[in-house]
């Protein structure tokens, strides 16, 4: 196994400091050689500074997601671009809370994060990004991306593996050319699968590329109590307690939406 590099990649912390702690512990236990967060530290959960302190203390590097860009620059919204007024209302509540509770030192740090990172491992080029290599807030859903499009993205960006996050549901496509696209999901919010655990991506890169998603348990009830104390919406608390998304559903394709409850 000496010639295999184990790469742990996770997205969307969304202020879930408990899931972050559990995920980092899980990655260490699995013996990850490299770990990266693909962006979006804040949003949704309570006390964003807690997650920022933990991540920065861990020395695991992070990309700048659309949320980090907005919070770093003090923009008016999260930049997800919803059109459903209900989604926008919840997104705004969450964003205003996060912006108001993120320390200036962390905001300054977010501004300076890279949008993308390239890793050269075993002769392969891995491109890490937040939404897609061409647009930070582009949602790449499994059922909405043709092989032809993903091959084009890899070709255009000269990548053997593209790893992204942003949309919150993990998936992996081994393309006919032998290249790979992996959406590592989010560790801050369940994957709309009815389970309270969260997921991250583990890539073993050597002679082949192997992709597995790892499931992480954390203390959901403590997070739920924190969220309630911070007066975050009950709809968000329902999501972490049930594993079903209750908001920001408008971009889900029919296939992914049908798997959920709302």
């Amino acid at each position, binding site marked *: 196994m000496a010639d295999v590099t184990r790469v742990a990649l996770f997205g969307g912390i969304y202020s879930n400091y408990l899931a972050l702690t559990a995920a980092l512990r899980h990655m260490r236990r699995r013996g990850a050689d490299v770990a990266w967060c693909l962006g979006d530290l804040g949003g949704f959960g309570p006390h964003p500074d807690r997650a920022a302190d933990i991540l920065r203390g861990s020395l695991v590097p992070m990309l700048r997601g659309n949320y980090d860009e907005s919070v770093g620059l003090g923009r008016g919204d999260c930049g997800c671009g919803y059109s459903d007024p209900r989604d926008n209302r919840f997104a705004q509540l969450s964003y205003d809370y996060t912006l108001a509770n993120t320390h200036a030192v962390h905001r300054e740090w977010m501004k300076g994060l890279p949008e993308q990172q390239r890793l050269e491992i075993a002769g392969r080029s891995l491109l890490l990004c937040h939404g897609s290599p061409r647009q930070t807030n582009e949602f790449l859903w499994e059922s909405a991306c043709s092989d032809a*499009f993903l091959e084009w993205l890899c070709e255009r960006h000269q990548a053997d593996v593209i790893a992204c996050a942003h949309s919150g549901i993990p998936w992996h496509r081994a393309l006919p050319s032998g290249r790979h696209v992996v959406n590592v999901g989010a560790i801050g919010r369940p994957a709309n699968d009815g389970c309270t655990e969260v997921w991250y991506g583990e890539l073993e890169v050597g002679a082949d590329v192997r992709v597995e998603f790892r499931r992480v348990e954390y203390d959901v009830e403590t997070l739920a109590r924190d969220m309630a104390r911070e007066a975050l919406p009950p709809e968000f608390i329902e999501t972490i307690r049930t594993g079903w998304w209750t908001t920001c559903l408008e971009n889900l394709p*029919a296939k992914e939406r049908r798997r959920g409850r709302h």
Partner: protein
Amino acid sequence: MMDREPRPSPEAPHGGGNPVGLAHAAPAVAATAPEPATAAAVDAPLPDTAPAAGGRFPLQPLLHLDTLWIQVAGTLCNLRCTHCFVSCGPGDDHHAMMSREEVRAHVADGVRLGVKEFYFTGGEPFLHPQMLEILADTLEHGPCTVLTNGTLFTRERLEALRRLSDSARYALEIRVSLDGHRAEDHDRLRGPGSFARTVSGLARLAEYELLPIVSATESPLEDPAALFESYATMLRAAGLPRPRIKLLPMFRLGREAERTRGYTAAETLLDLPADAFDPARLQCRACRAVTSHGVFVCPLLVDEASARMGDRLEQALGPFELRHGACATCYATGMTCGNG
């Protein structure tokens, strides 16, 4: 089909804007336009190279072909909506129905170019006798959305669509056009009784968990958020517990241009400074539309001779001169005909 709203109004500004000499001009459309379509109603010389009348229009590059629109049913529709932007109706064939083989060829062209997704329009796509086979063919290659008026959903068709949706790797989206959350508004444009038939179709789609997207035309008199909520309330009451709604602006094209008015010469992007132009705002940065008459820049301008860019996609990858009033509507609203 989708709420096709507008088409080129007779008064729509034309002529002017020869791209030659534009600071940000890449090869003009002329360089990539092939022979005009055979026996087409859009046989006019292509593109329109009339000398500029003292101004110029921005040139929109195609950044990548994300979206391929396929006007599979031509202009054949079972409704004759008074605002249809491609003037479709019963017996209308000014764009002809496309054969399964024609569609396959364009889909293959799109796949070679790295297309992300496909949209089927008409007319009414479910009037095409091979629509289900065409969908099955295309779902092998990427996600598909069908834009329909929602009035033709038999049990058999719904069962077939659900089977397709379950078995395909990619998403199958059904998008249904509504022009009001009240029957009187919708029926005024689409004909008496059409609201009830469409809402009944929507309820049946929901029953089969096909999760239809409702696309609705914005009214300049109504706040978009309030309009969104009105649609959501109506749809929930009609048996759609998870309404998905897309609002679109009205385009002054086709029958809508006759019903109200077309674009005026002032309603264009004429002389927009090159350094102020943001090519990321327009859907034609990432789409093309095919009909029986060839490849057009977008699904809105398929009745515009100057918007025809070739017979096949490979010939239609050059920049497009944004001379039409509809281009200004797209630019101002940042809208896309796509689901997103």
